[in-house]
């Protein structure tokens, strides 16, 4: 009934076309991340069977929380074709100011309110990013380099630099509240804290926003082609504000969890780790040019980085060699990733 190539198109899509590994990897790059992750774990387990204890898993899970929250924020910005390096400064800003605030003015503030305020505060700073990105019309990398300096400089020059060692009790208690606890062979207690739950919860929420709401589709649309998206009626301003606001909210949340988990509020913390988080997201299959990626992949990327960083002692790599090993590994993973992805 129609032109031949449309018929062929019909045929080719109708045909299950067999299972092609290359095509699968191209469509789901996070599968590579997964394979790498498993490969490392197997290799480490062979090198040192002590790796195979439940406590390993729990420690990795616990260590992923802050980075994971950051990564979700970075991922959604990356999906919309932007990049953010100010999230660590946002986290440091909110966590420290809030701790000071609670300590000095509202010692009785319930934990839930603290978490909410942190999230809101982070969102506010994120919105500042969003406004600047939208109105200055420059790549967000540049804007957020500026705001990173701005936020951190403001925090350290005007809010304070003193480390807070004794947290408000409710925050300290939250950091220790166990979700799961058992004793390992040497009598050490292994604890999975309750705050761990925040990461999967945030991941699910992010997944839901991206895949079930119009906003999520708008984010990918903007990442695909911002001009076109705006012509089709997606309000770029709304998308930008939401995007950076959401990433800021996640950063604020991550910041306060960082404080609770560490039992100290150090305003110098966090800033400087942003490149690692971006690397994690990219290793999770999101293209740095935007428009692609999945929440699952992002989480796998975070796990990959956390695992690499935490198995070095296990396999007995001397500390002089650790940087070289991590660096080489990132290169190797990236190369593997790219070559696999390119094969179609």
């Amino acid at each position, binding site marked *: 009934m129609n032109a031949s190539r449309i018929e062929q198109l019909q045929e080719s899509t109708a045909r299950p076309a067999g299972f092609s590994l290359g095509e699968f990897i191209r469509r789901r790059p996070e599968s590579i991340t997964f394979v790498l992750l498993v490969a490392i774990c197997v290799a480490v387990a062979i090198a040192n069977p*002590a790796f195979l204890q439940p406590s390993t898993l729990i*420690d990795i899970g616990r260590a992923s929380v802050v980075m994971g929250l950051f990564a979700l924020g970075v991922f959604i910005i990356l999906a919309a074709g932007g990049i953010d390096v100010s999230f660590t400064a946002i986290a440091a800003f909110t966590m420290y100011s809030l701790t000071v605030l609670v300590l000095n003015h509202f010692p009785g503030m319930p934990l839930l309110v603290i978490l909410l305020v942190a999230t809101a505060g982070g969102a506010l700073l994120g919105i500042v990013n969003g406004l600047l990105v939208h109105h200055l019309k420059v790549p967000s990398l540049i804007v957020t380099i500026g705001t990173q300096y701005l936020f951190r400089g403001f925090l350290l020059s005007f809010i304070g630099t*003193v480390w807070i060692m004794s947290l408000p009790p409710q925050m300290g208690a939250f950091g220790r509240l166990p979700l799961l606890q058992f004793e390992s062979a040497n009598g050490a*207690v292994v604890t999975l804290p309750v705050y761990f739950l925040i990461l999967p919860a945030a991941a699910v929420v992010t997944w839901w926003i991206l895949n079930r709401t119009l906003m999520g589709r708008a984010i990918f649309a903007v990442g695909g082609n911002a001009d076109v998206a705006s012509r089709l009626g997606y309000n770029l301003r709304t998308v930008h504000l939401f995007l950076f606001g959401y990433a800021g909210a996640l950063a604020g949340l991550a910041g306060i969890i960082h404080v609770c988990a560490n039992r100290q509020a150090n305003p*110098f913390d966090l800033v400087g780790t942003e490149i690692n988080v971006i690397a994690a997201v990219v290793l999770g299959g999101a293209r740095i040019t935007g428009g692609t990626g999945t929440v699952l992949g992002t989480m796998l990327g975070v796990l990959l980085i956390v695992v690499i960083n935490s198995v070095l*002692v296990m396999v007995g790599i001397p500390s002089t060699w650790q940087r070289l090993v991590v660096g080489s590994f990132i290169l190797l993973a990236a190369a593997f990733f790219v070559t696999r992805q390119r094969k179609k």
Partner: protein
Amino acid sequence: QEKPVIATVVKISGIPWFDRLETGVKAFQEANPDVEASQSGPATADSAQQLQIVNDLIAKGVNALAVVPMDPAVLEGTFQRAMERGIVVVTHEADNQINTHADVEAFDNDEYGAALNARLAECMGNAGKWTTFVGSLGSRTHIQWVTAGENNAKQHPDMELVDPNNESFDDANATYEKAKEILRKHPDIKGFQTSAGNDVLGVGRAIDEAGLTGKVCLVGTGLPNPSADLLESGAITAIGFWDPQKAGMAMNAVAKLLLEKKEVTDGIDLGVEGYNKVSVKQGPGKGLLVIGNGMVLADKATYKDHLF
């Protein structure tokens, strides 16, 4: 008539240790109104940033520099130029600094490292696996301390050093993760000797959370106030430190002496607690090495005497 300016430059400004040092500088200023003493430091722990500040101060024309080098080596060239311009250079925590008029140390680094280890060995009952943490492999004093510790441990054949010299980057969280890992890899580990100011916090938290308090010993450099909780709970066996306030005062005192062209002789009293009878030797360069007696080891019972 302008008052001579003594500029103190610390490794990084804003952190508790150097805030404490600043109280020393301020106290010195109060006691010595005939000089102008002030403190500055970089915003990030980066020797290049510190170098810049020192350079700018030299250009500004201060009379004396009292510097706690982030990395002594990086500052050599600049100090040389400063000395050529007639600026008095005094350093602290840099007993290998060549281009300085005087380096002020709170104590002998080898003695300090050995003392920490002796305390650790005592707690461990002179037997068992132990490991060490340093701020970074590039941190000379930290390496000195752990090396002295290793040498001390050789007296006890049953002490076994495993996976030594873990880098903490002075980040309590990173230290915590690494300590957990070590606890996992060596379930039978008995002791930790740490170097950077935050290491006791990270390792202590790991021990505390693992419920190993009392089973694993931890001795390291730390400040009394931040460590208070963990000392109380017993997760930290003992902390070693010197009071940066006193060190700051001592540095400035030496700088003032040198500005006044007075001689700094062995056994001289700098008028600062712990530096009442300093040993003065020839340093690695042309300058002097001024060693005080400011070492403090504190544990649960004694830390309250030094709250800062």
